[in-house]
């Protein structure tokens, strides 16, 4: 399966021809038992398995109509400020990365299922001439062992297809989680920048007042410089805040797979959603996470495929049997007649030099490794969930603490400081300095809220069995990865690759 060169028409045209070709050259009896890959069913399974993540909207677009539908849906979503669910939906509808993921999954599944097919028979034609004789030799040969082991191959192919399906779901969940987190970062950055501007404004007012104070002879150069220094610092903070907006937004644009024109239309809501009234209780997180966890299922599928493959390898490593049907025709020029010969051939590979033990050892060891890998995944699953929940719960408590304690206290301090200013107990410079401190607390509160929503997205993923880095505060981690499965450095459970 070669990659599509032209960018105008991506993946869609290829798969359609593929089954046809296979059908055309397949033999009737081989057809009966052949394994096939239905990508639409695989996508439907992913939609079911991770309904919270895909909102049922995952679809591999292969026709121009589907492509147009996708564009229309993206346009509709971009017409309004994009909330978190809409962002996920937009990624599902619009992201070429996700489409690539689906197509790649199809490819993986098809490759995996290949073992379920019989190798094609070999037709051998010979033309031999002696002095007076011309001989046509025809041999149709096929692997007898392949035919005998067909049910086993079919079983392996099924397991591998299932494996590819789970991997697809997992990659989709990971991508959607990244979209959620990128959305949270982008909204939080926009929310913070308004406050960073306020800090800057306050510092600017201080600096300007300081300048005038010096001009009027009321401030020394030192005092004026101090006020100016606040402004200088605030200006850099504001610049960083604006850069954070650009960076987080760009990251979101990439994950949504927006074109430049679409990116221009992207609008985000002014603030993050409020914290939920109560955090998700720990037992609910544990209950929701179940045997349906993707990491466990993937490890299970890898193990089963390997275990079945082991049985097959035990036979094929030792021997190989090939059966051929021969039909020869000889023309005798001298006598002016022809004779025919019919018969069959059986060829057996003799295990004289290689008794196949190394191959059997290798496959056995591989299966053993996968057994342990499955056990490790089972054991790690609960622990990862607890870690994710811990991060989630801490982020919730911290954010609520900011909301209920820190910010109201800062507000109270600000109000009292205005009263103190009224009484000429403090100066306007102290008032502005306090205002900066107050605003910085608000920015910290927004950061805490952002961390909560990041941890929330990570927990949702952890519950279905896709451990995602809980709370990377800086959006740098994902910046470069433009394609392929986006599961950066996760724990075990993925032995299938």
């Amino acid at each position: 399966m070669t990659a599509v060169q032209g960018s105008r028409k991506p993946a869609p045209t290829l798969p359609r021809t593929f089954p046809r070709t296979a059908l055309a050259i397949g033999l009737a009896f081989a057809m009966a038992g052949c394994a096939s890959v239905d990508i639409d069913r695989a996508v439907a399974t992913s939609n079911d398995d991770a309904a919270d993540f895909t909102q049922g909207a995952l679809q591999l677009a292969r026709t121009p109509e589907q492509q147009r539908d996708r564009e229309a849906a993206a346009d509709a979503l971009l017409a309004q400020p994009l909330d978190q669910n809409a962002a996920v939906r937009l990624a599902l509808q619009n992201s070429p990365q996700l489409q690539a993921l689906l197509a790649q999954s199809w490819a993986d599944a098809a490759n995996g299922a290949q073992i379920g097919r019989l190798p094609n028979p070999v037709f051998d034609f010979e033309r031999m001439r002696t002095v007076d004789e011309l001989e046509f030799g025809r041999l149709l040969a096929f692997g007898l062992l392949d035919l005998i082991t067909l049910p086993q191959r079919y079983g392996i192919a099924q397991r591998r297809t299932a494996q590819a399906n789970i991997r697809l779901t997992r990659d989709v969940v990971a991508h959607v989680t990244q979209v959620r987190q990128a959305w949270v970062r982008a909204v939080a950055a926009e929310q913070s920048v308004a406050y960073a501007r306020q800090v800057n404004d306050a510092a600017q007012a201080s600096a300007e007042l300081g300048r005038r104070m010096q001009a009027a002879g009321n401030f020394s150069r030192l005092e004026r410089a101090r006020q100016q220094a606040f402004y200088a610092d605030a200006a850099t903070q504001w610049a960083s805040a604006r850069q954070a907006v650009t960076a987080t937004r760009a990251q979101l644009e990439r994950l949504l797979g927006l074109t430049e024109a679409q990116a221009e239309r992207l609008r985000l809501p002014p603030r993050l959603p409020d914290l939920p009234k109560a955090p998700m209780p720990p037992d609910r997180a544990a209950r929701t996470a179940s045997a349906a966890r993707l990491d466990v299922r993937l490890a299970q599928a890898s193990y089963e495929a390997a275990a079945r493959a082991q049985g097959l390898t035990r036979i094929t490593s030792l021997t190989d049997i090939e059966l051929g049907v021969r039909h020869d025709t000889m023309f005798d020029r001298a006598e002016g007649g022809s004779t025919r010969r019919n018969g069959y051939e059986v060829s057996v590979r003799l295990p004289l030099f290689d008794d196949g033990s190394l191959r059997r050892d290798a496959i056995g060891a591989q299966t053993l490794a996968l057994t342990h890998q499955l056990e490790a995944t089972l054991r790690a699953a609960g622990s990862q969930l607890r870690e994710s929940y811990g991060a989630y719960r801490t982020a919730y408590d911290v954010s609520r603490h900011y909301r209920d304690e820190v910010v109201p206290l800062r507000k109270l301090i600000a109000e009292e400081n205005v009263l103190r200013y009224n009484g000429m107990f403090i100066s306007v410079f102290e008032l502005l300095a306090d205002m900066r401190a107050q605003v910085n607390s608000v920015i910290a509160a927004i950061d805490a809220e952002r961390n909560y929503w990041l941890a929330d997205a990570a927990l949702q993923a952890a519950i279905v069995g896709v451990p995602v880095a809980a709370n990377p505060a800086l959006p740098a981690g994902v910046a470069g990865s433009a394609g392929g499965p986006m599961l950066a450095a996760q724990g075990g459970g993925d032995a299938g690759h």
Partner: protein
Amino acid sequence: MTSRRAFLKSAGLAGGAVAAGGVNQVALAGLPELVTQTSAATAAPLVPDTGRPYRPVVTLNGWSLPWRMNDGVKEFHLVAEPVVREMAPGMKAHLWGYNGQSPGPTIEVVEGDRVRMFVTNRLPEHTSVHWHGQRLPNGMDGVSGLTQPSIPSGKTFVYEFVARRPGTFMYHPHADEMVQMAMGMMGTWITHPKAPHPLIDEVDRDFVFLLNAYDIDPGSYTPKIMTMLDFNLWTWNSRVFPGIDSLNVRQNDKVRLRVGNLTMTNHPIHVHGHEFVVTGTDGGPTPRAGRWPEVSIDIAVGQMRQMEFVADEEGDWALHCHKSHHTMNAMGHDVPTMIGVDHRDVARQITGLIPDYMVMGERGMADMAEMEMPLPDNTLPMMSGVGPFGSLEMGGMFSVLKVRKDQPRNDYRDPGWFKHPAGTVAYEYTGVVPEPTRARAAAPPAGAAITGGAGGAASIDIQIRKPQGHHGH
């Protein structure tokens, strides 16, 4: 102002209630009645009904302690206790004092009286009472550790001595003195002469008050006891203007002011419209040959001064400490000067960030008195007080001496604002004011006003903002 009879009645009631609440009844059985005062108003003079007669003093925003005669001994009962003192309407301080108030009641005795002072300690720590300026037996001097053990919490001690020397004295603790004085433990002691004294004149009005100072953070109630000098409330009898009562006198009354200083700095007390002579110090009456006329007298730390004058000029005369920061209430001492800094446009920017912000100080600080802006709880404007012509822009150690032709003798009621005879009030000149001719220096180079000269010869362009009648804020 309540009548003395009514006052004694209510004071007695209040005292009974307090006695029942606090100290063991049996222990108090042999003690003089315990009287406390709940009001910070100036009480009427306490005319003696037992013992030797005398002309009583009036304690500004205070009162005199009743006594009982016991076998010819004058017995008083002081209770050292935590009190709540209203420093001016709108502000209350949590202080330590005596008998319900800080400062404690004035004790008035007559030269030669044998005096027995019962002192009950209801403070959380030990105390003692030092009778500042008295001649007395050494063991009665009240210096804890030196002349007596200190009075433990809950205990009552007795001091007994003869008031040998007429004059104006003070009392205050001499145990954990820094804390207890910073908390308001102090009072005045007057020893009247028993017979006409060649150096002590009879007067018609005799006022007494103590100078004290507190550091109470705006919004809080308790003084900071560690403050050494940077107090923010300069008080007379633990009151600040506009909470200090006026001194109301009849024209041509002979007036005596007795002022004691228990702050940590000196105070030049200044009387308008009259000259006075200092007739007494802590050491006693001053010789007549040593008296000279003054309009201000500096009262040093720990000193007492008696000033006397005839109030022969009608009107409302200011009476205040001449340290101008002492006629202000709580203020920020680190607030920079804003004068001459036009920042109304910057103010708009600030108002965007801090909606309640208002421009102050660019013309001076009188804005402060003009604008009534919300302040922290339990504090007072730096300057305030409204007179018949507008804001007084005063605080702290300030009061008014009100001299009236028609003030009845011995009547201390406030007669209201003075009604000036026609043509005796400063008035506005409505003619043309010509610009003065001034020698002008060459204009400084542009920018010099901002950057200043490196050589230190900064050339500042003075820009006075002329009054423009903008009362928008």
